[in-house]
């Protein structure tokens, strides 16, 4: 029985190696200019509206550029899948790789393979690092926002909402998925700002896992605990809009007025937040910028056509803040 297995396996391997080509290409000429470029994009998944918007935007941008073809791979939020996808891209001999890494570490092996294959790797939206702290050697650039900064301006927006009031003011922090770099960074930013003043205090802090329903469920429980302990909650700072939107339902069901009794600030800038702001049920939202499609096309063209790398490794994208004041006007322009 086992003999048969080995024979079969050996035969299969032999057949493949006879018919297949080798991988012995060394670094080619310096200019890799071609008529058409194929770009492989490994996306985290489709776990939130913002993420889906990011994917859609990428696909639309590439579709509009006839010179570029995008190979899209969704990793369903697993790092293992992303590593396998990049290997496939290398095997498919793509011209460039765009990666939005689900976690920050563990890419060493596959990035070194990519380097060997001479395809530039661009990091988008989330950053990564290598063991030797030399991520810049393996990737061309990182295009993305500063989540620490996003956390800081979100925190500031909430504090500003209480500018006319006396402390102490208790608020709730709804965190993103435990361990996600965006949650960690936004949390850092938030605590940076909160640490500098003591009027507004974070009384409760829990994870809402970036989902609407968990945001609602957790907020419900917190409101009840607060009530039992005699604490009055005046504000909510959520790492993402959809958690805040879920939580605002819990607030409404508790008989309070979201946006009025409890001021709400979130991050992402999804349409739901704008609609709520237009109604006065939401205080502010920090935009999580998009635009990766055109940006990556621009940079890849530079690299492959002209061998020109972007000056700074970190291509920073700006976060805009939207509040009740300017939300209504901006609403028609929000695509997602």
């Amino acid at each position, binding site marked *: 029985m086992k003999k048969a297995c080995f024979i079969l396996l050996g035969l299969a391997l032999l057949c493949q190696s006879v018919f297949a080509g080798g991988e012995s290409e060394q670094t080619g000429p310096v200019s890799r200019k071609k008529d058409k470029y194929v770009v492989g994009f490994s996306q985290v998944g489709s776990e*939130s509206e913002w993420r889906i918007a990011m994917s859609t935007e990428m696909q639309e941008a590439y579709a509009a550029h006839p010179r570029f073809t995008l190979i899209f791979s969704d990793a369903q939020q697993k790092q293992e899948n992303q590593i396998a996808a990049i290997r496939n891209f290398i095997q498919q001999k793509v011209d460039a790789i765009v990666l939005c890494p689900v976690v920050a570490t563990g890419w060493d092996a596959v990035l070194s393979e990519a380097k060997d294959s001479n395809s530039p790797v661009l990091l988008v939206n989330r950053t990564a690092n290598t063991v030797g702290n030399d991520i810049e050697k393996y990737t061309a650039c990182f295009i993305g926002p500063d989540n620490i900064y996003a956390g800081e301006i979100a925190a500031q927006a909430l504090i500003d909402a209480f500018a006319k009031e006396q402390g102490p003011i208790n608020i709730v922090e709804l965190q993103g998925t435990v361990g996600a770099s965006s949650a960690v960074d936004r949390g850092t930013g938030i605590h940076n700002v909160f640490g500098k003043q003591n009027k507004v205090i974070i009384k409760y802090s829990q994870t809402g896992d970036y989902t609407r*329903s968990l945001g609602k469920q957790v907020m*419900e429980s917190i409101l*009840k605990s607060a009530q039992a*302990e005699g604490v009055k909650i005046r504000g909510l700072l959520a790492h993402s809009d959809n958690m805040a939107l879920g939580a605002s339902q819990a607030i409404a069901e508790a008989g309070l007025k979201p946006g009025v009794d409890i001021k709400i600030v979130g991050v992402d800038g999804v349409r739901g937040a704008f609609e709520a702001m237009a109604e006065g049920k939401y205080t502010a939202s920090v935009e999580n910028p998009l635009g990766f499609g055109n940006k990556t096309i621009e940079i890849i063209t530079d690299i492959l056509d002209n061998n020109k790398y972007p000056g700074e490794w970190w291509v920073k994208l700006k976060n805009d803040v939207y509040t009740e004041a300017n939300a209504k006007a901006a609403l028609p322009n929000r695509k997602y």
Partner: protein
Amino acid sequence: MDKIKALLRRKEVLSIAALSLLLLFNVFFTPGFFSLELKEGHFYGSLIDVLKRGAPLMFMAIGMTFVIATGSTDISVGSVAAIAGAVAAQMIGGDFSATAGTAASSLTPLPLAIGAALLTATLCGVWNGFLVSYLGVQALIATLMLQVAGRGIAQLVTRGNVITMYYKPFFEFGTGYFLGLPICIYVVLAVALIAYLFSKKTSYGLFLESSGSNRSSTRYAGIKVQTMIWIAFAISGLMAGIAGVLIASEVKAADANNAGLNYELDAILAVVLGGNSMKGGRFSLAGSLIGALLVQALTTTIYMKGVPAQTILVVKAVVVILVGIIQTTNYRKLLARFVKKQPSEAFEVGK
């Protein structure tokens, strides 16, 4: 005395005991758990939350009970719930009018939308049943395929968006109250009652238990085992659909990615905690419902105590193990050891 003994031997005893223990724990250690007030004409408190939050799980547990009674499992219920929610949301529409903040009407009449959602879910269950009973695909694999594809289908229906709904009448199901209690609870009780009557007053229940206990003898007795299994999966699909519509109504949105995520494990847990055996056979719907309440009460308690979310898993595991050990310990055997000599264990095969 005999009557009490008979009562104690019922399947549901353990889960009721566990739930009571948990509630007792909360009386002492969780302030505010039992506080009930009247807000806006309805009861408001953690107990109400447990009921409301546990409702989707209770629906799924009902459906899962039927499937497990045949000795199979259905891990696609979460994805089917997502599909149902997506269908309902797509048909109701996320129309937003900035002035009213609510939609004036839904794209299709509400009963039609909900009906379509439930029909889709039931068809999913029928598909599973077809694979398992007629094509003989193993239940785990058959439902695994729908679990994977299901979320994809749900996302297809919503075109990848999270559809936020503003149509008030739809929310009544998930967030409305009647006589002070959440409407969804009444629906759960109604559905549970129908399921109970269906299983006890028709021959289906009997045949189902029989198919689970001993498939070949049931077949030899002339009962079409395949139809029994197929119906069980269809029911599971329908229940998942109701749960999905409820979830969408409660969150006022259809989130194809996250709706019903990991519910299948909790549903199976609820059924087993309720005293049902995964090998199939006799089942208790009441047990499953109590099991679902137990799981939900556990979750709510943990959130209220501010314990980090990741600890929920460990606590759940410990509870499951404890309840399981108590359930499977054969007390009579234990007692017999003290009374008379231990009979030979030659025929004792892993319980």
